[in-house]
């Protein structure tokens, strides 16, 4: 059976990893050492799809031309195609749950349905379909990287991580994305738990560990007990709409405060400001103050941001994360002193403010032993190898983050499975009829912590029946609610008297039905041939770009090592490749990449020799002195 890979499908960045010689390693899907794939998807008016760095370039923004003019580039949402980022924030949401500010950012089709749908040209995309494109790019990139390393291997079976606090609908949407990308999702694993596996893999770690995961779009806190290879989650809490994105938005508001509202909402202006804001935020991790500049046509915004001011903007969000920590610690029946280690995960934990406040809350310096960008993907690879039976005694016991129940008389939520219950778990509940000869019983399943059904999230409705006509209260139907190891609900029902299994027709309140997914898959198969061609083309174009970029850099540094006739030959191939790269003949691109490789091989060898000579000279100088 094929190897299982681990995928971190992040709000901002996505990665794929696998075990190599007993250690988890990320795979450089973006070529030379680039493992982070930005979770950005561009869909061109003709339906062509681009994912990652190159999609960012297509995002509508403002750019300063050589002559100093500022012009708008990229395509805006709607009839001209669109660039979608942070699609994870929309996973599992219903149309009515879209915030007004999001409506300014993208064009949505019909917002009354149970699934958000992006309108792009004449086509409509659900968040699961967009996420599927990210998954496909990871799959293709990984297969390409493996091939380059001499390994012909397909990515077919995967573990995908999700925020621990994702509800049933959000998990289901993630699984759907995997299916739409043609992957078998062997397991969904919670991100902080995955991180704990990477953290505890070789240490024979023991004790209580808190994982603080503050990423681009989501926040999770999980508290685990690690003992003899068993990683048991005691409690988890979080917020699926709380992350670095929110801090960026506040900085943007400050940056654009003086602009009239209509200008602020302009997608080119807003995106440019967002980029400037995020960059400034990141710089302030290392410096105490920084200029922030947004060039607009006609004038430019020039402001100054200090780390103190940034901290003030970030503080309300940080306060929310700490509140969640308190709740999780209490649910774990621990105190901060009872927690032996705090592990930081996610890009936003690079902020000094976050580190300071986390240290104060837990009375200890948090650990950041593994790259916070990679730890979740590495942990997913560890879980993948557990699932392949290759990690001996190691076992993960995770929990369900939100209580599950049903609506009872008077609109009250009756809890059947409490939050932080270890999964898989099941509970049986008996149902009967309320009036004579009733043939169906309606059941409304809810998820959440509030008392009233209307304040909880509707998960699904289903109808039990047909029931044989009998006096009220006589039929006895036992319904089993089972939450599997992915944290996803399964329901089945049995007639107590006849012992017959009832079919349960579950209608999810949000998300796609099985039929809809089937239909999308069929459409995808129709487009399959073309998609494959297109993906291959893109991958060859990327190769071309890489070799051209590398050559440009080398000629800049070591141009003296090339003589005139050699240079002329190179330039000639470069020119042909540059031209081919914008076309659609992938065979030609592949051939020219090969040719350029040949022409430049002697040059590459000379660079190598020169570097060695330089190193030797340096060494002998050192030895002399």
């Amino acid at each position, binding site marked *: 059976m094929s190897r299982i890979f681990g995928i971190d499908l992040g709000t901002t960045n996505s990665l794929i990893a696998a075990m190599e010689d007993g250690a988890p390693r990320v795979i450089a899907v973006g070529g030379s050492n680039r493992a982070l794939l930005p979770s950005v998807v561009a869909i061109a008016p003709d339906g062509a799809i681009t994912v990652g760095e190159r999609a960012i370039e297509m995002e509508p923004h403002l750019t300063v031309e050589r002559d100093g003019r500022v012009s708008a580039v990229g395509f805006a949402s709607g009839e001209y195609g669109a660039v979608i980022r942070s699609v994870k924030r929309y996973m599992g949401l219903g149309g009515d749950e879209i915030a007004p500010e999001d409506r300014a950012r993208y064009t949505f089709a019909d917002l009354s349905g149970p699934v958000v749908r992006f309108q792009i040209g004449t086509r409509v995309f659900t968040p699961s379909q967009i996420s599927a494109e990210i998954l496909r790019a990871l799959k293709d990139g990984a297969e390409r990287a493996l091939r380059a390393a001499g390994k012909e291997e397909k990515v077919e079976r995967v573990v995908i991580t999700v925020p621990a606090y994702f509800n049933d609908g959000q998990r289901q949407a993630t699984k759907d994305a995997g299916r739409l990308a043609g992957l078998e999702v062997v*397991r969904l694993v919670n991100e902080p738990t995955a991180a704990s596996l990477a953290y505890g893999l070789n240490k024979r770690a023991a004790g209580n560990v808190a994982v603080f995961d503050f990423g681009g779009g989501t926040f999770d806190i999980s508290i685990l007990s690690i003992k003899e290879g*068993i990683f048991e989650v005691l409690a988890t809490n979080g917020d699926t709409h709380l992350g670095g994105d929110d801090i960026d938005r506040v900085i943007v508001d400050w940056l654009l405060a003086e602009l009239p509202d209509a200008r602020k909402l302009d997608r080119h202006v807003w995106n440019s400001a967002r980029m400037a804001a995020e960059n400034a935020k990141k710089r302030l991790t290392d410096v105490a103050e920084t200029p922030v500049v947004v060039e607009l046509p006609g004038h430019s915004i020039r402001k100054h941001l200090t780390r103190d001011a940034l901290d003030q903007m970030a503080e309300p969000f940080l306060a929310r994360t700490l509140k969640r920590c308190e709740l999780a610690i209490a649910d774990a029946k621990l105190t901060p002193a009872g927690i032996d280690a705090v592990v930081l995960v996610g890009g936003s934990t690079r902020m000094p403010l976050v580190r300071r406040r986390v240290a104060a809350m837990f009375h200890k310096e948090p650990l950041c032993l593994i790259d916070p960008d990679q730890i979740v993907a590495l942990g997913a690879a560890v879980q993948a190898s557990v*699932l392949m039976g290759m990690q001996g*005694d190691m076992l993960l016991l995770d929990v369900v983050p939100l209580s599950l129940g049903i609506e009872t008389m008077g609109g009250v939520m009756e809890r059947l499975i409490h939050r932080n219950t270890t999964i898989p778990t099941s*509970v049986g509940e008996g149902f009967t009829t309320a009036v004579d000869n009733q043939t169906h019983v309606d059941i409304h399943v809810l998820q959440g912590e509030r008392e009233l059904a209307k304040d909880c999230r509707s998960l699904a409705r289903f109808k039990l029946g047909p029931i044989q006509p009998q006096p009220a209260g006589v039929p006895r139907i036992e319904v089993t609610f089972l939450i599997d190891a992915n944290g996803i609900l399964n329901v089945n029902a049995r007639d107590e008297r006849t012992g017959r299994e009832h079919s349960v027709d579950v209608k999810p309140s949000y998300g796609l039905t099985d039929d809809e997914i089937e239909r999308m898959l069929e459409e995808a198969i129709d487009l399959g041939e073309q998609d494959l061609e297109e993906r291959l083309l893109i991958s060859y174009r990327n190769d071309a770009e890489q070799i051209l970029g590398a050559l440009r850099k080398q000629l800049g540094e070591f141009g003296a090592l090339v003589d005139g006739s050699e240079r002329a030959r190179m330039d000639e191939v470069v020119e042909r490749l540059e031209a081919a790269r914008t076309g659609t003949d992938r065979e030609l691109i592949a051939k020219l990449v090969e040719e350029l490789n040949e022409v430049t091989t002697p040059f590459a060898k000379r660079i190598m020799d020169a570097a060695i000579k330089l190193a030797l000279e340096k060494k002998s100088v050192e030895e002399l002195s």
Partner: protein
Amino acid sequence: MIECPSCGRRQEPLLTCADCGSPLAAPLGCFAALGLPRKLAIDLGALERRYHELSRKIHPDRFASSAAPVRDASLRATATLTRSYRTLRDPVARGLYWLELNGEKLAENNKRVPPDLAELVFEVQEQLAEMHDAPADSDAARELAAQVVARRGQLQTAMDANVAELERNFVKCDQRPDEKMLTLQLKPILSSIAYLRTLIRDVDRAVENSKAA
């Protein structure tokens, strides 16, 4: 009788197949699931070790590449094991389960105030009512919240005493398993605990709300 989805052997319901060790989707009680004798006094350390050991054998992570019926049996067996462990781990849940096994249960709406705690309970309820009426975010509300938090400590102490009493009775029940009277004596203790637990939860909610406001 139940059939093993892995080797096909028919056998009495167990957590794992007696022949091949594969998980079985058998309907099992809490003690049977963990392979323990029906005894109320339980060493929690040993219980946890047992739970971990069995989880290692039957958890779905161990059967990710198995055939669908085996995967399904593993899922159901693990759900049963987990539920059983959670029930037995908590003395109160264990006591309630014991009543159920003996055909007993607490009254649906447990409204009986534990007699020895009547005064404390009355005071706390009085305070909760006042908190409810006090204007949000006022000094009066904060003052009341502080008082209620102090009382919460007393409620918790009473709760701990009741749990200790419960565990002493567990030992007695185990010593004389045929005495139905002993099981019935668990009822008033469990009923006090259930009452206190609801009240403590109400206090926590009220304090939480006063902060949120």
